[in-house]
């Protein structure tokens, strides 16, 4: 019953989240009150019956390794297979995903699965890959590429023919038309991938190999009919975080499909005081809330003292907002301490980002 294996590509990221990715890779960026970005793609894989997942890594891998641990939270601490963090070669030269896959070629030979799903970690959605597999098998495609429909500005859009095959890809389509935006998830036969890896005049990446040769690779499109959040900038990070405050989005991500797993921290339930004012907020466990929280995402273990106000903001794990401090339109990385009566203020378009562990004491 094990048909697919998973590859999560955390190298050559085109995503820049500023201070949030200064000391961690994109995959390890905290999101949604208690998750890291990688939890979404990893849970999707596990929930779809995938029991072998390779994570290709580059720099700053420690926070990711700490988060993934033995893989137990995803039931991937298996005897054979399970979770493999494939390190970079360590000699300081950055390898492409194709080079790294080639270096760890034996990993693919070990498993008996027929199919591989390659994905990145900066996409937030809840999708059943077994359905994708079914569509892939029905279409007879070499590769199935996942996309979603949107009228927003996106990097690229697929032209899809009447049979579902991708005929072309356009960069930066403009206007309010409906675009078929790729979400960087590809399904293919393992043998097809191994052939690509072994091509002598190799492409830079698997993705490039697929998308540059749409004429000779049969790439079919699979539409994800659910909420999709592409996190590729501080702005989109902030926007998709705030979107979680819409009950519909919350339901689509967490209650409609299978659960999203993450590292368990065993925090107690959150405690509200007599004076707490909380409206329109997503709040994780282990917080103590004595102040005011509005339109915000509060991660695990945050302390919000009496008289403090947090609005339109994201406060990550173990943050502390002292008495009468104001935090507005801000993103506070882990363990940020805001002193009493100080303000941290950004704007809706440019939220103020405070780096990890910073003590914020600017009046």
């Amino acid at each position, binding site marked *: 019953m094990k048909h697919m294996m998973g590859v999560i590509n955390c190298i050559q990221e085109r995503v820049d989240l500023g201070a949030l990715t200064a000391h961690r890779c994109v995959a390890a960026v905290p999101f949604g009150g208690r998750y890291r970005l990688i939890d979404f793609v990893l849970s999707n894989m596990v929930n779809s019956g995938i029991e072998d997942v390779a994570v290709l890594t580059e720099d700053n891998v420690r926070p990711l390794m700490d988060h993934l641990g033995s893989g137990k939270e995803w039931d991937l601490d298996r005897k054979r297979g399970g979770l493999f963090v494939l390190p970079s070669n360590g000699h300081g030269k950055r390898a492409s995903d194709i080079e790294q896959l080639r270096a760890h070629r034996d990993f693919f030979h070990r498993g008996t699965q027929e199919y591989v799903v390659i994905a990145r970690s900066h996409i937030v959605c809840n999708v059943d890959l077994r359905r994708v597999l079914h569509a892939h098998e029905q279409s007879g495609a070499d590769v199935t590429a996942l996309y979603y429909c949107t009228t927003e500005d996106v990097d690229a859009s697929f032209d899809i023919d009447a049979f579902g095959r991708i005929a072309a890809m356009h960069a930066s389509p403009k206007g309010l038309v409906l675009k078929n935006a790729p979400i960087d998830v590809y399904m293919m036969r393992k043998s097809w991938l191994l052939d690509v890896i072994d091509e002598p005049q190799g492409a830079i990446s698997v993705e490039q190999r697929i998308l540059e040769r749409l004429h000779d690779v049969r790439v079919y499109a699979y539409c994800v009919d659910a909420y999709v959040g592409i996190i590729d900038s501080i702005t989109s990070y902030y926007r998709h975080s705030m979107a979680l405050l819409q009950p519909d989005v919350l339901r689509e991500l967490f209650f409609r499909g299978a659960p999203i797993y993450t590292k368990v921290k065993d925090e107690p*339930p959150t405690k509200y005081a007599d004076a707490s004012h909380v409206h329109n907020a997503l709040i994780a466990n282990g917080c*103590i809330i004595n102040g005011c929280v509005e339109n915000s995402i509060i991660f695990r273990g945050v302390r919000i003292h009496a008289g403090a106000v947090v609005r339109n903001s994201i406060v990550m794990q173990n943050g502390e907002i002292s008495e009468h401090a104001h935090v507005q339109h801000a993103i506070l990385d882990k363990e940020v301490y805001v002193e009493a009566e100080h303000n941290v203020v950004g704007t809706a378009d440019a939220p103020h980002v405070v780096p990890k562990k910073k003590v914020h004491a600017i009046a």
Partner: protein
Amino acid sequence: MRSKRCIAMCLAGGEGRRLGPLTHHLAKPAVHFGGKYRIIDFTLSNCTNSGIDTVGVLTQYEPLVLNSYIGIGSAWDLDRKDGGVTVLPPFVEQQGGNWYKGTANAIYRNMAFIERYDPEYVLVISGDHIYKMDYERMLHFHRTRNADATIAVIQVDWKDASRFGILATNERDQVIDFAEKPAKPQSNLASMGVYMFNWKTLKAYLQQDEANKLSSNDFGKDIIPAMLFEGTRVFAYPFEGYWKDVGTIDSLWEANMDLLADEPTLDLFDDRWRIYSQNTYQPPQYIAPQARVTRSMVNEGCTVYGEVDHSVLFYGSHVAPGALVRDSVIMPNAVIGAGAVVIRAIVGEGATVTDGCSIGHPTGDITLIASDQWVRKGVLA
């Protein structure tokens, strides 16, 4: 199998009859508490945090929920190569089987399990109690006193003393007298039902007690009195802190409300002594724009659209717009409908208080809605 210095045997077969419908299909240690826990989480977490990695959990009443809840023990870090947690229901021989006759009989019948680990010390605890305790310190006390048995004790109100096993000690903490629920208590030092034994000594007493047909095979009633009678070295280990046997609906409600104090005696936020529990993979709690939450504990997976005051909400519970929940405990996945009012109540797991329905009274007994029950308007719970 490596031999273990100290293993724990946790008695978890209690019916908890006075908890009424809450324990119809649930042993008392499996009862929910504190927004995310079950009562047994406290003793299992105490074991892990005290460095005890081998725990036998003795079940008998409604063991299936406990069995499935405990699983392979990973929630408490008790999924170990050697030892870990083992659920021990009463054993059925070819000629049949029956329930454990008493607490001592329960340990006696699992001697084969204990001997597998060849322990020096055996800690006997109950899965019914809510407290945080470092058993390693108790073991240290036991060893320095050169004791054969040590009983953890706590000072209770004199007026409650006759509900407990009461000990009298000398100035060296040695127990000189023990009385189970005495009409006229000699002291207010109550046994917490936490016993540390030298295994060799305990084994001898268990065998002797089992041979006595008149014995009720109970630690408090039989084993400890026999030890004292024969001059075995029994000591009392003084414990200070929160300890509660939530035997009734009122005390269960009270224990939940205790958590809502500004600095509760039972501190669940202490990172050095985490209380572990099975995780249910819920997203963070969602507090809607029109909601109001004050003086409460709310767990992940809750969605609050109404008003919640001085209450404890378990995972997955839902408070609809216009509803009011006050001085109440809302168990997992319970739903409080739009405009409903819940006062001084315990709403059981998966129960529904339908729209506009009102339950509970500001004074008097706590109202209890049983698990999975539907409460409709006009139908008093």
